[in-house]
């Protein structure tokens, strides 16, 4: 850590849950418009933020709406006029926003949203699972997966700067309950520090009655693709912008972040790949004596979109095996981080490309403790080649007696 600045010295420590940290982050960012609809486990973000916004010394509005679809619509309208807009949601709420997530990204509106990862219904569940946010992979939103309350607070603030610099929306993601409702010590930066880091939004174009223009109108086949390519290019540049933000944030606060965090990679033969709060448990596992003996490293993927493929290739080139823990599933294929990572590693030359082992566990909030992670590592160490199918771990009930699978017809073979 570098020396904190005088502004950082004016920061104070508070005991906050992940959700409270998210709210304080949005408030410190001087958000002007908040619109949200309550849903567990997100609700305490907007509850806290409602109280904070009432004390705002800048023009600020908290807009109550009847659905998440409308909440995002309000944010889109507000952001289009050049203001700073924020919302938060979970699971079904996020799914309901889906169409408008495309509008926000396609409209190049730097909205920041916190999604508290919650399993999708049915069956009804309020517990942690990443399938909700990962289902929004292709909407054009950046996605940052956090692993601590401090991480959440800092990333909400930094997300606004990344978003506004590149005119793309950013989703900050945290795990349900394990992070959203778990309190820990958080350093609250002084307002002056945040103001220095995040100037008022200066929108390069906006909805302005004095300068009327049509927004979101018809775009002919002559132009549509190039406009979409610009969104892709801008989102791709967000990785570099994040690096600049992290550097300046470290200078101001002494706290360092990276789009991909890594531990014990120097001589690693096997690397565990995680995201979210599972990463901190995994860190305990790889710091154990047996894991050190087995030369197990850890990679935490913080940035999922844009996907830091080159960074991951650099970090993992030459490693024998990677084991990916996915608290999500792209049904009919694999865990989503696993498939994304495999796709990235495909760019490595033969001999440098690790074998990839994919594990799905912890869906619907089932705890991923030390033992579960040790199981992942041991299975990976024990198998010379990965299973061709997704490996599902952590079942509470024993397996049912095997049912013989009829052979496929000749034509399929």
């Amino acid at each position, binding site marked *: 850590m570098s020396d904190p600045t005088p502004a950082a010295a004016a920061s104070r420590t508070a005991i906050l849950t992940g959700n409270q940290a998210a709210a304080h982050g949005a408030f410190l960012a001087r958000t002007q418009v908040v619109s949200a609809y309550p849903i567990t486990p997100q609700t305490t973000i907007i509850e806290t933020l409602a109280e904070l916004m009432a004390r705002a010394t800048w023009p600020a509005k908290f807009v109550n709406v009847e659905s998440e679809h409308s909440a995002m619509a309000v944010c889109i309208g507000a952001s289009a006029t050049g203001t700073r807009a924020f919302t938060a949601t979970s699971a079904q709420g996020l799914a309901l926003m889906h169409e408008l997530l495309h509008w926000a990204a*396609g409209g*190049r509106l730097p909205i920041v949203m916190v999604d508290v990862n919650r399993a999708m219904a049915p069956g009804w569940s309020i517990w942690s699972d990443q399938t909700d946010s990962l289902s929004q992979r292709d909407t054009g939103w950046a996605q940052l997966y956090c692993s601590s309350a401090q991480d959440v607070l800092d990333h909400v603030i930094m997300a606004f700067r990344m978003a506004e610099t590149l*005119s793309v929306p950013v989703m900050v993601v945290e795990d349900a309950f394990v992070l959203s409702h778990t309190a820990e010590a958080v350093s609250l930066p002084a307002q002056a520090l945040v103001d220095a880091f995040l100037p008022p939004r200066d929108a390069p174009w906006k909805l302005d009655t004095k300068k009327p*223009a*049509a927004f*979101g109108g018809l775009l002919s086949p002559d*132009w549509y693709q190039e*406009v979409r390519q*610009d969104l892709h290019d801008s989102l791709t540049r967000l990785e570099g912008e994040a690096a600049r933000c992290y550097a300046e944030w470290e200078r101001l606060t002494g706290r360092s972040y990276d789009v991909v965090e890594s531990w014990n990679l120097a001589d690693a033969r096997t690397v565990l790949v995680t995201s979210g709060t599972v990463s901190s448990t995994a860190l305990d596992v790889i710091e154990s004596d047996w894991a050190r003996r087995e030369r197990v490293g850890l990679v935490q993927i913080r940035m999922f979109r844009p996907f830091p493929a080159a960074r991951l290739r650099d970090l993992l080139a030459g490693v024998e095996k990677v084991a990916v823990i996915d608290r999500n599933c792209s049904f009919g294929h694999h865990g989503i981080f696993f498939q994304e990572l495999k796709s990235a590693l495909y760019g490595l030359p033969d001999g440098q490309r690790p074998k990839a082992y994919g594990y799905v566990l912890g869906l619907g909030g089932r705890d991923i403790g030390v033992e579960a992670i040790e199981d992942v590592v041991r299975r990976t160490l024990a198998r010379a080649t990965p299973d061709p199918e997704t490996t599902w771990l952590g079942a509470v009930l024993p397996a049912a007696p095997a049912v013989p699978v009829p052979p496929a017809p000749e034509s399929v073979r």
Partner: protein
Amino acid sequence: MKDVHGRVTLETRGDLPPTAISLGGTAWNRTGSWKFLEPFYKNLTPPCAHACLTGLDIVAMMSAVEAGRWDDAVRVVMDVNPFPAITGRACPHPCEQPCNRKAYGGGVSIRAVERQVGDHKLAADVRPELPPTVHARVHVVGSGPAGLAAAVALRRLGHPVTVHEAAPEAGGLLRYGIPAYRLPSEVVRAEVAWVQRLGIEVRTGHRLARREIDALGPTLLAVGFGRSRPLGIPGEDLRGVHDGLPLLAAIRRGEPVPVGGTAAVIGGGNTALDVVRSLKRLGTDATVWYRRTAREMPAFRQEVEEAKEEGVPFEFLVAPVRIEPAPGGRVRLTLVRMELGPKDASGRAKPVPKAGSEFAVEVDAVVKALGEVLDEEALPAGVAAADGKVVTDDAWRTGDAERFAAGDCAGRFGYTVSEAVRSGRLAAHAMHAQLTGEAVPAASPLADQGADPEIAKFKMLHLAHFAKEGAHVPPVAAADARSAGFDPVEGALGTDAARAEAARCFKCGTCVECDVCYQFCPDIAIQKGPEGGYTIDLAHCKGCGVCVEECPRAAIHMRKSS
């Protein structure tokens, strides 16, 4: 990037905005060439104005009232009818009958709003602008609604005017005919005082002899119908048999009325209704005897309904046969039962007596209320009468070039206060043209604005723009309470309710510049004019018809594109 009059041409990919944002305009794209139909503004005639007996632009009055511009509302009314406080009480309001609002929450209380406008006129003393009196003095004989309306119109045309009235107070039928519970004396007095404040001389209490009329300069006769129609049966001149109109006049003068405890009122018109309701208020047990049925009664429907509420008994299909003296100073009235036969000249079924159905009643008084007719004997020399009315030409002139006639005696219109007002105004303008050679057409507001004679129908309105709220109606005194005296039956709406009621008015077929077309036009082809109103930019109007569909009140229409 090239920009030619808002038409943008992108030259490199760098010209592309990061999202779909318009860079130029679309005015260069003259989409007007796509259309085969085009919208145009044309006001239609609202059903109320079509039915109005004075020719009032009711929608213009409603718009002014809605906006709280009471003085403007008075001016709108005053141009066709100087006495809204009177017509707002005494008019049978045929305007309300066809109101399109009836099918959507209830018809608009037009007369009650007009009364509020009239009361404002008197309270605020709103007067028309008057030119100097540059012409020769003219005289008006008779101070009923026609005479007073003519006097005001003549004064507004620059004539000094003298009104001659035989009775002690001016107002004619307004003062001595219509009962106080319908039209209080103080309202008539206030209107006469207002007329005098316009510089019009009003002389009362002297019935002009024929030679006195002969000595006057240009004169308008508005003498009304001075004689009661006779029954034509034996005994109708007996003591205890009265004429309706003089009886009403006596009641209005506050004189003791020698009628007694029971009375039979013969007739089915407004005079009969006014008499029977007035007698009831004086404690007389009076019955209406009418030779046809309720359907054929010429009295205003509202009057009949109110009389029934007050407990007035009606006997239909009975006709008087003879009247004889009865013991105790009473009279014996013999009647015969009637039945309806084939239609007569008036289009109503002709009643014919049923043989052997005669019967008699004994009453303290019989009141003949068959209506009134022209008193031909009172007409000056050179003024002829035919068919019960003064003979006039198209210019309202009698046989004498300096004698004109208006009101009931001229017999041009129906016999209501409102039609008398209209008649007086039209005659005044005709008289002015004859006397000065200068034609000033009488105002005809809708036609003057170019409104189409087609009547705006309910199905033409766009109801989504209107709330289905109920009408605001004036308070009406309970039947028991009101029939005990001569206090007004109907109260005032009040300014707030009148404004709310005016806001309820659909303003059928009339552009009120509500901006709906302006807001809905998808091509910004409807533009606001600097002086109000709208223009349509036909170079860009695609003829989609959204403005016509959306117009709440059928003031925009489509036609083949030119």
